[in-house]
């Protein structure tokens, strides 16, 4: 390939003139095409976190139970009995718009590899999805492809997809978000890291062959979308879940031996980033001979091989005396296994191909002199508190509008395409509880898992959006009886070069950090996805809503104590937490009044902690038999979801005197839970004693939801409305 390497080419690879200047000074010469490719992907936003690093550092990442925080392939926390939970969430947004099926599928594949790379068997997948306006024709294409892609990959590898969340909003037209999370279990003394060690040790490539797919995927995902999306299609990778399944089994079999010194999956920027990261972390040099790389296509150049993002590949450093044993394991699983290099003491990454040195870059400066930006910030004015408007409709009408609305409608159409039971450890499936509950095989413990974010809050007040995502994840775990341990984050924002967007980003991180600190809920892994923007018809950049998605993990010592959200046959219904009736940014305001206004509900971290700890302790002592946190749509939606899930109705007291009924029932005040008990006297007494606000809502009864004389709605009608949205959107109603 005869291409002139210069500043213009560097720019087309996504490097600024300044960044290219640094490349020249590091190299002391004009880099080769392969070298330029390596610099450009390593210094892309996706790999270098150059705009976000400064701010990410402010997040709390430590706790006595954190074994590995950010910086490894995934976060690792102690769950007792010598076991660890390994988890992370990662975005695959841009590919999922270009080619929804493969984009979402390879998103799942990539995050699975991050987890089993560390020696953990993946036990659960979750996701957080944002789609465009359901009235846009293209939304249906994206939903269809993404859901099929997640299912197609997860079902085949045999990891249950146990939970997730979905929002629809026009801000995601042309820029959907696909955030995938994987959770695995490992023995604490068998955690594998990526730092290479031992000069002379072999560097081994395993998994699928390398093709030309995904070249420059990492730089693409760091650029805004434009009209020429079809020309980008070849950069989307194709997933092969069958090979991934073999890779999981082969890697775990190999990891049971003592052959592996270091291991790293080939994710974004493929061979380049895995080789560079392993060598850099281990302070060694690495030499690769690309002639030995298993290749799927002919005449591939060094540049292409170094930048390919072909899926289902891993790079390992092995003990030389165990290499043949390792080879036999991979041959048994019918996977490629090739020694493609060696660790050196040069401190460089040296790439040879057909006898020619195609790249020779000092690793120190490649990492140390990577760009780091303190981008300008323009504070974004927070929306003013909304004055409570009158309701244009009755309570019952509002309830019916809301349960049928895109953000609250039943997700069964989606869940029913994901295998949620494979593995045989799923205790609470999607929709069964606020968090998915998955037993830890061979123990009495279970993990509680959830993904959460309310982007409309973040749009009005980014700080609140960040904090609320964390507290909602914490509440969802708490509402099952589990103790929240740690989170992974997936920060999806627009262009960091726009000071307003950068302002949102910084504020959201502040909010997250404060909530994480107050709740002892550290961030142990994460991913940043910037440049989530499209061009409107008049050429303006349109950013998504700030979407700091949180993946939360908690643990239950006794799995049998987990509670779900469905109303049981009998019991009294109580509300924990205070209700002022905050309708700003509520779904009621948006769906019933057509307004997206006001300040989001205020976050009181002390109240969150107090109310949550109260609820959890009374789930564990058996006095609470069902629980659902109050979030999107407010109190009446919470009760309606519990009633629909349990097929039992209830009779509720009217809103307290002095509160507007619709504000009481649809306000989205935080720090609240609806709980069911047969011991309301004891619980109310306990609440009084500990200063926890509590309100007696009503009793479980019949097959309708009644509120005094104000409302009397039958569950069958409600469920029909609730279940209609997705099948209707997808054109699958009869």
């Amino acid at each position: 390939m005869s291409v002139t390497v210069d500043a213009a080419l560097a720019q087309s690879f996504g490097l600024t003139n300044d960044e290219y200047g640094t490349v020249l000074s590091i190299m002391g010469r004009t880099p080769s095409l392969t070298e330029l490719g390596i610099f450009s992907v390593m210094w892309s936003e996706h790999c270098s976190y150059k705009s976000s690093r400064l701010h990410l550092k402010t997040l709390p990442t430590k706790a006595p139970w954190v074994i590995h925080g950010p910086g490894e392939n995934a976060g690792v926390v102690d769950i007792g009995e010598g076991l660890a939970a390994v988890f992370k969430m990662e975005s695959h947004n841009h590919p999922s718009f270009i080619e929804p099926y493969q984009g979402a599928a390879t998103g799942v594949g990539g995050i699975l590899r991050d987890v089993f790379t560390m020696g953990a068997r993946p036990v659960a997948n979750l996701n957080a999805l944002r789609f465009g306006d359901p009235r846009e024709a293209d939304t249906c294409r994206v939903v269809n492809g993404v859901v099929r892609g997640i299912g197609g990959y997860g079902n085949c590898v045999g990891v249950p997809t146990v939970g997730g969340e979905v929002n629809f909003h026009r801000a995601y037209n042309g820029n959907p978000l696909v955030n995938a999370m994987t959770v695995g279990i490992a023995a604490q003394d068998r955690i594998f890291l990526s730092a290479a060690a031992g000069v002379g040790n072999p560097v081994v490539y395993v998994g699928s062959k390398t093709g030309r797919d995904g070249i420059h995927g990492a730089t693409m995902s760091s650029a805004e979308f434009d009209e020429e999306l079809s020309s980008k299609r070849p950069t989307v990778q194709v997933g092969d879940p069958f090979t991934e399944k073999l890779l999981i089994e082969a890697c775990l079999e190999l990891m049971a031996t003592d052959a592996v010194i270091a291991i790293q999956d080939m994710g974004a920027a493929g061979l380049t980033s895995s080789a560079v990261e392993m060598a850099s972390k281990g302070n060694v040099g690495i030499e690769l001979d690309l002639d030995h790389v298993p290749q799927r296509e002919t005449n591939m150049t060094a540049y292409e091989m170094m930048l390919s993002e072909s899926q289902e590949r891993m790079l390992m450093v092995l003990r030389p005396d165990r290499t043949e044993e390792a080879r036999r394991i991979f041959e048994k699983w019918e996977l490629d296994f090739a020694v493609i290099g060696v660790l050196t003491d040069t401190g460089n990454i040296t790439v040879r191909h057909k006898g020619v040195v195609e790249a020779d870059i000092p690793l120190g400066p490649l990492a140390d002199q990577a760009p780091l930006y303190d981008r300008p910030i323009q504070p974004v004015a927070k929306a003013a508190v909304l004055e409570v408007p009158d309701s244009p409709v009755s309570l019952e009408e509002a309830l019916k509008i809301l349960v049928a609305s895109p953000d609250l409608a039943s997700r069964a159409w989606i869940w029913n395409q994901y295998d949620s039971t494979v593995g045989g450890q799923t205790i609470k499936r999607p929709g069964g509880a606020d968090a998915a509950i998955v037993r830890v095989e061979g123990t009495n413990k279970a993990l509680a898992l959830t993904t959460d974010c309310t982007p409309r809050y973040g749009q009005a007040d980014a700080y609140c959006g960040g904090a609320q995502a964390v507290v909602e994840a914490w509440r969802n775990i708490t509402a099952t009886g589990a103790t929240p341990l740690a989170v992974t984050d997936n920060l999806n924002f627009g262009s960091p070069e726009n000071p307003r967007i950068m302002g949102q980003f910084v504020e959201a991180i502040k909010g997250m950090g404060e909530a994480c600190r107050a709740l002892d809920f550290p961030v142990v892994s994460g991913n940043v996805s910037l440049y989530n923007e499209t061009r409107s018809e008049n050429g303006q950049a349109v950013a998504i809503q700030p979407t700091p998605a949180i993946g939360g993990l908690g643990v239950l010592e006794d799995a049998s104590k987990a509670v779900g959200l469905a109303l049981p046959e009998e019991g009294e219904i109580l509300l924990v937490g205070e209700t002022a009736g905050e309708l700003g940014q509520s779904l009621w305001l948006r769906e019933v009044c057509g307004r997206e206004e006001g300040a989001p509900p205020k976050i009181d971290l002390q109240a969150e902690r107090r109310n949550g700890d109260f609820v959890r302790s009374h789930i564990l002592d058996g006095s609470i038999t069902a629980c659902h946190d109050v979030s999107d749509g407010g109190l009446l939606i919470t009760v309606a979801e519990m009633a629909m899930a349990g097929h039992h109705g209830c009779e509720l007291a009217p809103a307290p005197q002095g509160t507007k009924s619709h504000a009481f029932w649809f306000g989205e005040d935080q720090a609240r839970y609806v709980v069911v008990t047969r011991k309301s006297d004891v619980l109310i007494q306990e609440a009084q004693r500990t200063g926890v606000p509590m309100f007696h809502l009503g009793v479980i009864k019949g097959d309708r939801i009644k509120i005094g004389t104000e409302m009397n709605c039958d569950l069958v009608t409600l469920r029909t409305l609730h279940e209609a949205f997705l099948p209707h959107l997808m054109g699958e109603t009869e």
Partner: protein
Amino acid sequence: MKTGIVVFPGTNRERDMVHAIERVSGRKPTLLWHQQESVEGLDLVILPGGFSYGDYLRSGAMAAHSPIMKAVRQFAEKGGYVLGVCNGFQILTEARLLPGALLRNAGMRFLSQDCFLKVETSESAFTCGWHKGDVFRAPMAHGDGNYTASPETLKRLEGEGRVAFRYCDGEGRVEPANMASNLNGSAQAIAGILSDNKRVCGLMPHPENLTDALTGGTDGVPLFKGLVETLSR
């Protein structure tokens, strides 16, 4: 009861099956690698669910030609007991150990949800844990579960009492034309069938995933209890 569970590349419900067998029989099954050429000494061979060879050709088609399937065939011919669940059922039809075929679900989507099954005969080791007419719940998780066979084969299966399970609603109503209960559109709502000696059984849903109250219920236990009682005699 000595049980072997076959693992093909891409099998993914072998662990679920191990737990179910262990829970009900108290004995640990052995895992059999697909390249093994013998299954001697076993009472029961199970082909569990998954995506053998990625199901990239036709579900079960590649696995049907693997070395162990020759041994399974010989085992079955000698009167051995074989259970195929989901992908295992697909493999059994591809290997012609059971008649018919499993097509793409009628709705063209993967189905992962609980379904209800009606027990059509109690006269086999696989179904004797129930009474004829019993209704139980089981999760399904498949893309290709739409059972089909020639009219003659269907007639024979019905006539010889070889339909083991049928999809039904919670009240036990079997309505082949109703996609709300016959979710994948199977012919005559057939969910599981038996070989002519009734010692080979294939079914699409996963009773092994309902053998523990904590993970959703014990509706699937009678399948394994029946096997233990028959094969431990």
